[in-house]
């Protein structure tokens, strides 16, 4: 009983902290006039929605580029993460602790320092102000998380099923795809969703490394927030959180479906 009460209190508090600001965003984005001390806006308008959907900075190309960049970064980070995780979890080699530590390095360095430093490196490589450069940086940002998630699930699964598949006649690649991959799928989806969200919400690194040429939703959002138009800022913020949440929900549903699949009689 006490546990249930605490849970309810916690959930209530969490809802208050998340839903109230979100509701404010909805109100602001549709408000034409909202002056102090009114509790609700005095008049409503569809101006911001029109601006969002059809304006000079309409959301569609931004959504497209952000999602494409996020998807690509998620796929790459997960692929590299999976290979690293297998090396760390299933094999022994000299310098293994060093590799594990190196995988976490991007987490330890402050984001701004990382962005400026990597920008210098990319300038030398000729990758600054390019999509490839931004993609590379997003992958690097997501990698520590992907490696951590995938190392855990790979270590939990172990190499046992692949050993069994091998003695039953499956070559190494086939064995991995036939018996390990289905078991790793929830972890892979978690890693992809994490990497996607990280890439999707990158602002500073995209700005510095992309040099303004690579446009993403997060990049477009910030000037609105810094500018004076609260309504416009609200509608873009809603579009950003809404789309991110949508992708997150999609991955969660996929993971859930996949795990339930094993229970069917």
């Amino acid at each position: 009983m006490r546990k249930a009460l605490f849970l309810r209190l916690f959930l209530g508090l969490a809802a208050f902290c998340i839903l109230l600001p979100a509701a404010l965003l909805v109100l602001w984005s549709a408000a034409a006039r909202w002056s102090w001390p009114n509790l609700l806006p005095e008049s409503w308008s569809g101006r911001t929605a029109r601006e969002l959907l059809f304006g000079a900075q309409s959301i569609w190309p931004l959504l497209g580029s952000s999602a494409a960049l996020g998807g690509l970064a998620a796929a790459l980070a997960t692929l590299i993460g999976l290979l690293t995780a297998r090396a760390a979890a299933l094999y022994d080699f000299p310098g293994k602790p060093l590799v594990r530590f190196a995988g976490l390095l991007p987490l330890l360095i402050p984001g701004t320092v990382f962005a400026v430093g990597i920008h210098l490196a990319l300038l030398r490589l000729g990758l600054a102000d390019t999509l490839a450069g931004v993609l590379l940086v997003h992958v690097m940002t997501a990698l520590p998380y992907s490696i951590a998630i995938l190392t855990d699930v790979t270590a939990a699964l172990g190499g046992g099923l692949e050993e069994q598949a091998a003695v039953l006649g499956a070559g190494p690649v086939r064995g991995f795809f036939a018996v390990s991959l289905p078991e790793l799928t929830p972890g892979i989806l978690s890693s992809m969703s994490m990497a996607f969200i990280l890439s999707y919400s990158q602002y500073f690194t995209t700005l510095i490394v992309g040099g303004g040429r690579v446009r993403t939703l997060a990049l477009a959002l910030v000037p609105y927030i810094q500018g004076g138009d609260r309504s416009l800022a609200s509608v873009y913020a809603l579009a950003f959180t809404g789309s991110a949440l949508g992708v997150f929900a999609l991955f969660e549903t996929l993971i859930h479906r996949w795990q339930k699949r094993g229970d069917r009689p």
Partner: protein
Amino acid sequence: MKLEIEHLSVALEGRDILQNLSLQAEAGELLALLGPSGCGKTTLLKTVAGILAPQCGRIRLGREDITHLPPHRRGVVILFQDIRLFPHMTAAENVAFPLRMRGVGRRARLEQAAKLLDRVRLPGYGARRVGSLSGGERQRVALARALAAEPRLLLLDEPFSALDENLREDMRELVLSLHREFRTTTVLVTHDRGEALGMSDRVALLFHGEIEQCDTPEAVYLRPATRRAADYFGGCALLDGEVRAGIFRGGPVALPVSLPEGRYALCLRERMWRPAENGPYALRVERVRFRGPETAVTLAAADGTLFQKTFPGSVPFQEGDVLRFDLDVGDPVFFPQEECL
């Protein structure tokens, strides 16, 4: 197919697990690999299957040298102790897996899987999820899957240890009947002495990475090659003594032998003591422990040496009585004693 292992050495993480091990299993034979846990049994199986690479030595199957063949090309299947069914597949898909790897069409392989499931007494279990099977059922699905691969050599890694005692006997019978039917050369790893003796054509004793003895179950049990082997099987008391002028003397026992002089231990089995009215040995009953079908009796010789003997049912004597025995050692087994012991 005949398995020949020659001078095999395996080290894991810098530690020697197997040293210069040689062993053979004849074609169609069921060889039990018996030894205490940690002696390298599982390492040997994994090396034969190709999961571990040996430091040196050779493994041959039939006429083929398979030492450097990858595991999926060896035709050697391990049935692991922890069963390792593929959790996302049904029972039939698990059994059909080796056929799928060989490119057999879906329908043909599922048909074959159903037949094999029948054979391990799981008819109609094909569509069942692995998670819904009991331990014994999983073990049988794994057995059917191993057979589906039509292995040239089947390696069973303690396949019964995870099962309840009553299921274990069933599984042993099933494995034996399948072995009689398919005649697949089989190596059964176990630490259960009774299982090794009762199931196999020959028993190989493995201690600390080396084969101590490899012979028929009767020979391994009755004529242990070393003191360690005798100790491991139990069922005999080792009586330390000395041979002088053709007579072995140890404790109360004196036997004429044809051994060079020196210190020996005599392997003395309890059935060698025969109760006899006028027997030369007078043993005092130290302890009587009734256990239902039998009674365990501890007997003491005049010099204090203790012997164990079990009698069927209850016994007509009690602690403190003195009984007379004959000693019939038949063809006695002696172990020379090393100086330092």
